[in-house]
């Protein structure tokens, strides 16, 4: 662990596990509250985490969430094993989705997940290999007050 890492934790998320969809986002939120992180940063990161978690449940087989706090940033890496995204530019546009009716019944799958994650983060990167998986990296800066 590099010297400026204040905290790091990882979580496993299983694909299709709708029953627990949201548990990782709320667990990370509880940790950030205990650590005294500003509420505005917690809210933005939690929104991004929840969308990322639902994306894994809806589309991937499994994923690992790693979140890391440094003095400047809370960063999250979500590396999934899944089908990958053939056209990232297409998937990043609002309303573009390959969701099924079951996903929509859960209140997701409207093609807003990735745009919502980007909107709520200060750093955002996505890499995907079709047939292998997608890795999402996003971070919220801690220097913006509440």
């Amino acid at each position, binding site marked *: 662990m590099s010297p400026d890492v204040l905290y790091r934790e990882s979580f496993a998320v299983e694909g299709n596990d*709708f*029953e627990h*969809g*949201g*548990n990782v*986002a*709320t667990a990370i*939120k509880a940790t950030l509250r205990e650590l005294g992180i500003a*509420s505005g940063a917690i*809210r933005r990161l*939690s*929104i991004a*985490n*929840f*969308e990322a978690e*639902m994306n894994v449940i809806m589309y991937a087989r499994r994923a690992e969430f790693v979140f890391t706090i440094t003095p400047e940033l809370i960063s999250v890496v979500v590396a999934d094993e899944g089908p990958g995204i053939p056209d990232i530019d297409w998937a990043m546009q609002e309303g573009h989705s390959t969701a099924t009716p079951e996903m929509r*019944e*859960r*209140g*997701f799958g*409207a093609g*807003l*997940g990735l745009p*919502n994650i980007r*909107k*709520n983060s200060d750093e955002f990167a996505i890499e995907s290999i079709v047939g292998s998986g997608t890795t999402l990296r996003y971070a919220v800066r801690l220097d913006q007050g509440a």
Partner: protein
Amino acid sequence: MADLLELLRCEVISGSNQLDGFEPTGFFAADLMSDVLAFAHPGNVLLTGLTSLQAVHAADVAELPAIVFVDGKRPKDDVREKAERRGIPLLATRFDMFEACGRLYEAGHVAGRKP
């Protein structure tokens, strides 16, 4: 909050002890949780027809202090228990989404969004 309970003739499903002295910043209505995450503002009461666990998670991460289920819908026990643990009161109204929103709007509760 008393206003909300009366206007929508709400039944309190859980968390009645958390309603005292509670003043919402406004209201937000959606069945799409991505819309809740994108557009609701902290402190808004959520009106929704979605009774799954994801409604409670969405309210929790977006800092929405209470949920009103429309159309007389009621969540399952595990959803109610999750909301109790998170400190989010759950209410139910028999009005549908359109009429529930209309009643609040008519009573002077304007948008949940910032202008």
